């Protein structure tokens, strides 16, 4: 029983309530401080370097009203979603395939792990050379960035399937497909979902970055185009919307995760 624990237990109730209020107050104060800092920074640094928050808000509202912002958001999200689906599919399918070819898996594993070291964003120009300047290079980028965490998670999950469960299923008469579906798939679901939490925000992020370099629509294009035209307000507006988008997606994922975890035991150590 530690000193602090003992102390807290003595004065548990009133202390916690006071503390919670202080924290909430502190957070609001800090947020206001940041906003104030932004406003002051904008005034001091001038319109080239920092856009006035009010103007940024106005721009966002304007662009939403005339539909251009929504169009950009739609393009980015669509790109992210398609790339995510592709990356997820291969990320899940490939380990299952490799599972049936253990010798090949063993031989190829170090190269796959080595390829993780290649910065995928650095491949964008190559993809542009290969696939042109439409959506294709961006889809490849998003797909790859989603593929890797999902693949590694599912691969590790399959590796860690309890052999005893598999043996039990086999003894009970299950064939390969049934084993794959029943034992393997369920065992690796927690790993898979954990990787999705990483992969989905990454997909959006990758779509935006892809749009920096190629294309003429999307949030990334909006940000970069504004920068090239020294339209600082546009840059800020784009950054704010992009950040908000990813944060919202994160929050939704956390919410879904919490709902799902209600009935499934979630393991803690699944950072991959």
């Amino acid at each position: 029983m530690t000193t602090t624990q003992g102390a807290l237990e003595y004065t548990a109730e009133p202390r916690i309530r006071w503390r919670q209020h202080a924290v909430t107050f502190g957070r609001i104060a800090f947020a206001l401080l940041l906003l104030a800092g932004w406003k002051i920074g904008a005034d001091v640094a001038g319109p080239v370097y920092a856009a006035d928050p009010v103007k940024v808000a106005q721009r966002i509202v304007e662009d939403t009203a005339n539909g251009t912002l929504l169009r950009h958001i739609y393009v980015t999200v669509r790109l992210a979603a398609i790339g995510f689906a592709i990356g997820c599919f291969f990320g899940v399918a490939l380990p299952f395939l490799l599972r049936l070819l253990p010798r090949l898996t063993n031989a190829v594993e170090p190269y796959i792990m080595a390829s993780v070291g290649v910065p995928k964003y650095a491949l964008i120009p190559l993809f542009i050379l290969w696939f042109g300047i439409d959506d294709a290079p961006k889809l490849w980028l998003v797909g790859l960035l989603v593929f890797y965490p999902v693949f590694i998670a599912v691969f590790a999950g399959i590796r860690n399937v309890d052999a005893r469960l598999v043996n039990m299923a086999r003894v009970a008469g299950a064939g390969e497909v049934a084993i794959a579906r029943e034992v393997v798939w369920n065992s690796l679901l927690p790993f898979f979902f954990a990787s999705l939490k990483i992969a989905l925000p990454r997909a959006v992020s990758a779509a935006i970055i892809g749009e920096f370099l190629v294309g003429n629509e999307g949030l990334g294009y909006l940000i970069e185009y504004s920068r090239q035209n020294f339209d600082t307000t546009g840059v800020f507006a784009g950054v704010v919307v992009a950040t908000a988008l990813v944060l919202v997606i994160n929050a939704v994922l956390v919410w879904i995760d919490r709902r799902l975890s209600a009935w499934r035991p979630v393991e803690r150590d699944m950072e991959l």
Partner: protein
Amino acid sequence: MPARTSTESSDAVGVRPAPERSATRTRFDRLLVLVVLLALWVALALTLERGTYWVGSPWGVASRLGSDIWGGIWRGLGFLAGPAWVDSVLGAMTRPANAAQGGEIFIHASYTLFEALAGFLLGAIPAAALPFLLRRLPIVTAVIDPFMVGGYGAPKLALAPLFILWFGIGIESKIALVAITVFFIVYFSALAGVRALDAKLVQMAQVMGASERAVARHIVFPGAVPYIFTGLRIAMPYSIGGAVIAELISANRGLGYLIQLGANNFDTTAVFVALVATTCIVFVGNWSVNVAERWLLRWRPPADLRAEAEGRP
């Protein structure tokens, strides 16, 4: 226990085959895969129409990389040893065709590396220090927590144009981008490390008369180091990736710049050369973190004992 056949999936399910039997076979298999991949590369370069556009030329990559590296070494030796090297027999024999250049790849690589390293340190050091400084002020930690989570979740790499707007196309924008990316990653790892404090060790030290500062220095900090290293390891690829992305968008030096330059000139070979160099840097980075960790954390029990202690299989 059912007998093992080639279609038995107990191998693939994670029950490892007897090591002695397959260690050599695995090494052979892996070598075979490497040979096949290289052969495929050469085959594609030769047989595809405009093959070198699609996959670059393997010999082109090898020769350019080789001559650039040798050129760099040659010039480096010349710089260090002066005429003693340049006029020597070996030096004269191996003098590269264009002696004024050579080593370009090193120059660009060093720019990228510097951006990544400087940003890494600039971000990691405050991020690791902050949880320690706030250790006695849990309210402050709680207040900034949602902002930190937001900063962590927000796509920092997507802010690259903003940083270029602010700091120009030089190295400062890349360093700033890397720093902010690394900061949030390392902050949470360090926070976890400070929180994972073993209260019993603190009590023990207090009974022995340790002051607050001694406790922080001897108990809190060493206990947090493993966690900080996890954060460093995660952040390292992001630091190089961030530098390269920013260079892709706008730069006049660095490996990302080389990649973009090569692509703009439809020179796939040049792109591959730069990619190889980038990947090498990532490996060097990984290796450095591993070496540092192995030395600093040599007191740690090996992973399986640790897992046992924590109740994992």
